[in-house]
Every structure is written in C-alpha cells, then in structure tokens.
C-alpha cells in the first residue's frame, strides 16, 4: 500500500500542513499584537512590576522583534507561556488537550459512521415502509438539531430523568473525573457530537444503497443463491459506501468544530474547552497556541481522510 508515490505525496502534504500552520498562527499573532501591550494583561499594573512583566513576555520589544522570536520559538515547538496562569508552558498543555479532544472525536466518528450506515441500510431495505419513514424523519430532525440541543436532551434523559426513575442506579454521571474519559463517561458526549452527522450519513447511505441494489451484479449475486444478508453486506454495502467516503472530510471537520461546544457542555478538558476559555479570559498566548493546534489537527485529519480513500477504494491513487 505504501508505494513510493504515496510516501512522496504524504511528504508533500506534511510540508503544506507545516506552512499552513505557520501562516495561520502568524495571522492570529499579528492580529492580536496590533493591540497595545497592556491590553494583554487583565490586571492593572503600574511601575516597575508592570515593566518587568512586559519584559518577561517580551512585550516591550518592537513588533517585528516579537514576531521573529515567536517564529523562532515555534520552529522549536515552543508556543510560549500562558498570560493568565504564569509559568504554565503552552505546548505540553495544548498537546494533552488535543489528545483528549481526539479521543472524543474518534469515538464520535465511529458512532457517526456505524449508526449512519446501519440506519441507512435498514431504511433502504425496507423502502417506503413505516420504518423507512420513521428513520427518514428522525434524520431530518437529527441534522436540524444543534448539538447542544441534542446534548441537553440527552443530559435531561440520561443524567436526570433516568436517575430519578431508577433511584440513581442507572444514571449517567455528568462529571468527567480524570483527564481522559472512561467508556462509561465518553459515550454520551460522543453520541451527542456524532448524531447530527449520523443522520446525514444515513440519508446518503439510503440513497446510494437504493441505487446499488438495482444493479445487475446484485441480481447476479441473488440469482446464484446467496442469502440476502450476504448480498447486502458483502456486495451492495461496499459500493454504496463510496458517496459516504466523499463526505468524510467535511464530516471530520464538523466533528472537530462541534467538539468545541460539546466539550464545554460536558466539561471535558480538551482543546475546545480551552479555546472558549482562553478567549473569555483573554489569555492571548493560549488563544494563539490553541488555534495553531487546531490548524495542525485539521491538516492532519484531512490528510488521513485522503489516505483512507485509497484504502477503501483502491481505484484512487496518489
């Protein structure tokens, strides 16, 4: 699978990602630093203490020198120090948060694809039955629902109503204890994150499945006496997944951005929560760091999606 051509392609893309990340962080850096230096601190400081603080963060230098330092540090993987929590290094912080977000995102993506494909296939198999209409209406509702609305409904049901009804024996615990989520903690936020896109995948799968099962090779498969299950799973499903693959890119980006909202609702210590928090607390250095991480994450996710195409559909080559 990893031919020389593929490796060159990956190499080129990685260089492109590096440039994008650098460009994005530069834009945000310069955008923020056109503000005067003292706008960068929330407390009002005067005199020597203030000068020392400015000097500590290099904010007493001309903008060009600041930018040079920023670029130099970034090339060494150093995103600087938090303005609010003094002494906290941003690089290890955002890398840890990135891994938390990735954990939730991957589970959500799994839910999206598996649920979407199963529901879409069922709807296509029972075309024009009440089940088909039910699933189709659910999917319209699903993708019209903002994920925070889904999340609130799920919390009301699983964390509050279910707890009241069963006296607390079956209840989703809203508190996310450690840095990473346990299976018992992660399923609900991941479901809320993935559900709108699952409805979308279901619609696509249904449409393409209906097209595929009318083709000749499916008739051949049936004619040679294969069971319906094998016809659907081994022959029809594969080809009906091609349109689904094409939306994988937007899907992944949707899950990454949706994560910002979901992490804030479920109190998940990921990149999305930090993004909102750092903007609200005006911790400019962290904002730059988080946004840089997002640019890298989106670049790598897009690359992985493109590579996944070649695995699923061998006709695509780079």
């Amino acid at each position, binding site marked *: 699978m990893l031919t020389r051509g593929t490796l060159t392609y990956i190499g080129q893309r990685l260089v492109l990602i590096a440039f994008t990340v650098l460009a994005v962080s530069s834009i*945000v850096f310069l*955008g*923020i630093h056109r503000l005067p230096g003292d706008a960068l601190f929330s407390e009002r400081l005067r005199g020597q203490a203030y000068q020392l603080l400015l000097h500590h963060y290099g904010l007493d230098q001309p903008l060009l020198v600041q930018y040079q330092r920023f670029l130099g540090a970034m090339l060494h993987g150093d995103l600087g120090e938090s303005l609010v929590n003094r002494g906290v290094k941003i690089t290890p912080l955002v890398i840890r948060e990135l891994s938390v977000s990735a954990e939730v995102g991957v589970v959500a993506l799994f839910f999206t694809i598996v649920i979407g494909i199963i529901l879409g296939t069922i709807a296509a198999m029972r075309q024009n039955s009440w089940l088909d209409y039910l699933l189709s209406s659910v999917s*319209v*509702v699903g*993708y*019209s*629902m*903002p994920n*925070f*609305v889904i*999340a*609130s*409904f799920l*919390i*009301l049901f699983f964390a*509050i109503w279910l707890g009241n009804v069963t006296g607390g024996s079956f209840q989703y615990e809203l508190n996310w204890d450690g840095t990473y989520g346990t299976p018992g903690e992660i399923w609900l936020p991941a479901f809320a994150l993935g559900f709108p896109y699952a409805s979308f995948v279901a619609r696509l799968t249904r*449409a393409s499945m209906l097209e595929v099962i009318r083709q000749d090779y499916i008739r051949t498969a049936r004619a040679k006496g294969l069971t319906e299950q094998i016809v659907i799973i081994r022959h029809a499903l594969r080809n009906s997944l091609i349109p689904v693959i094409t939306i994988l890119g937007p899907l992944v*980006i949707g899950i*990454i*951005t949706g994560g*910002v*909202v979901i992490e*804030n*609702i479920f109190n998940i210590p990921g990149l999305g929560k930090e*993004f*909102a928090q750092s*903007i*609200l607390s005006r911790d400019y250095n962290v*904002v730059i760091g988080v*946004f840089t991480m*997002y*640019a890298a994450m*989106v670049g790598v996710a*897009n690359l992985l999606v493109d590579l996944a195409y070649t695995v699923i559909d061998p006709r695509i080559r780079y």
Partner: protein
Amino acid sequence: MATASATPADRFDAVPARAQVSLWSDAWRRLRRNRLAAVSAFYLAFVFAVAIISLVWTPYSTSHLGVVTPYGGPSGAHPLGGDQYGRDILSRLMEGARTSMTVGVGTQIVVLAVGITVGLLAGYFRGWFDTVVTLVINIFYGIPDLLVALILVFLIGQGSLGTIIFAIAVTRWMDMARLVRGQTLSIREREFVEAAKASGAKPRKIIFGHILPNALGPIIVQATIGVPSAILFEAFMSFLGLGIQPPTASWGSMAADGVNAIRISPHIVLAPSLALMITLMAFNFLGDGLRDALDPRQRR
C-alpha cells in the same frame, strides 16, 4: 369515433391548452402544494412577525432582573417561566427571534452580494481572476468555519450584531460564489447568450440581463438553505459566550444559561432549544420545497 377529416394537427388542437404560466407562478403553485414547505413558510412568517413585534412590544422587559422569581417555572402570568436572573423567558425568546432572524437574513444579504458578484465575474470572464477565486474557495473549504468565525469576532473585538454577521459571512460566502460561478459557466455557453453577444450586447447587459436571471432559481434555494446555517453559527457562538453579548437575548446564550441550571429548572434550556430546533427545521423543509418547486427535474 374520429371523423375522417381529423388530421394530427386537429387532434393536437383538441387538447385543451394549458394556460400560459411563467416559471415563477408555476413554481409558486408547486410550492403551495408541498404541505410541509407551506407549513414551514407559515411558521417562519410567524417568527418574523414575532421578531418585528419584539422591537416595540414584549410582555415584560427583556433585560430587567427579577420580573419573575429566579428559576421560576411556567405560570399563568409567565407562560415559559423565568431564567436564573428572574427575567421573563417568553419576552427573551421574542428578542432572541429578532437576533436570529437579523443574523440569518443579514448574513445572507452579505453572502448574496459577495457571492453573486464574485461568482458572476469569475464564471463570465474566467482567466486569472477565476483561478484565484477557485483557489481561495478551496482553501476556505479546508478550514473549520466555526473556529474562524470565532477568532474573527475575537480579533475585531466582542460581538455586536454587525461583527457577528461579518464574521459568519466571511466563512459562508464561498458556497454561493461556487454555485453562481458554476451556473454562469454553463449559462454563458447557451445559444441565447451567443445571440445576445452576436447582436452586440455589452458584457454588463449579458451578465445582468441574461445570465443572472437564469441563475436565480438555484440562488434562491442556496440563500434559503444558508439562513439556517447562519442562525446555527450565531447560536453556537452565543452558546460559548463569544457571540451576542448580554443583555441582548440570543437563543444560543439562553440555552447556555439553561444548561448550567439544567438540574434545577430544565424549562430554561427547553424553550430556546425547541425554538431553535423548529426554526432550523422549518428553513430546511422550505429550502427542500423551494428546490423541488424551482427545479422539478432535480427531484431527490
């Protein structure tokens, strides 16, 4: 049965001629027949009306604290209850409708202006401008739009309505530009454009007199679908506390308040969430209905 004198032409004349209708009245007829789309249009008209009424009248003040018992549930005087500061939720829901509709429609006006201009120019003149536009559109498709909108609001300074409309429009214009460019590319090759060119029409006349009117159907559908996505963006931003700033009500920030109080009084989160959900659904149904009505060949 048929008389001997009946020629094919006579038989053709015998079929009652369909009354001449324009494309638009034909589409209007199809749209009214689509019950889901008609109900959605009716509901959206109602939301618009509420948004306008909220300019001059709401049952209670939208920003005064303690009008209701804080966290108070629905009652006769306050059908939707009060929020954590004791503000009347129904009044704030009405103001939230105004916020949503302003952002949704405002964004689409900017998107229409930019997208149509860029798309027409790129599609008609092609050349280097088209190359640049296509490149920029592709770059925009690869970046997470919500995050860019958030960072833009942050860089400009916190959210007034204008800032938010601008930030969302920056991340949303390319759908429209791509659509108009594609339409222009195909329409400019048609015979009536050729004829107009041959009769000496200037590019401006061809673009606005021939190409744009023929691309209006898809543009209207795209604009209708664009409104809920802008409303959703504003709700997300306000939900995170980075959009519309208090005391102005937004369904997103109201829902955020409600999530914090979800254990004690779930009614605070339910009202704005349901309003948002139903409105977005109505726009989606109307968009689907418009697409079926304006382009009957392209049934899903």
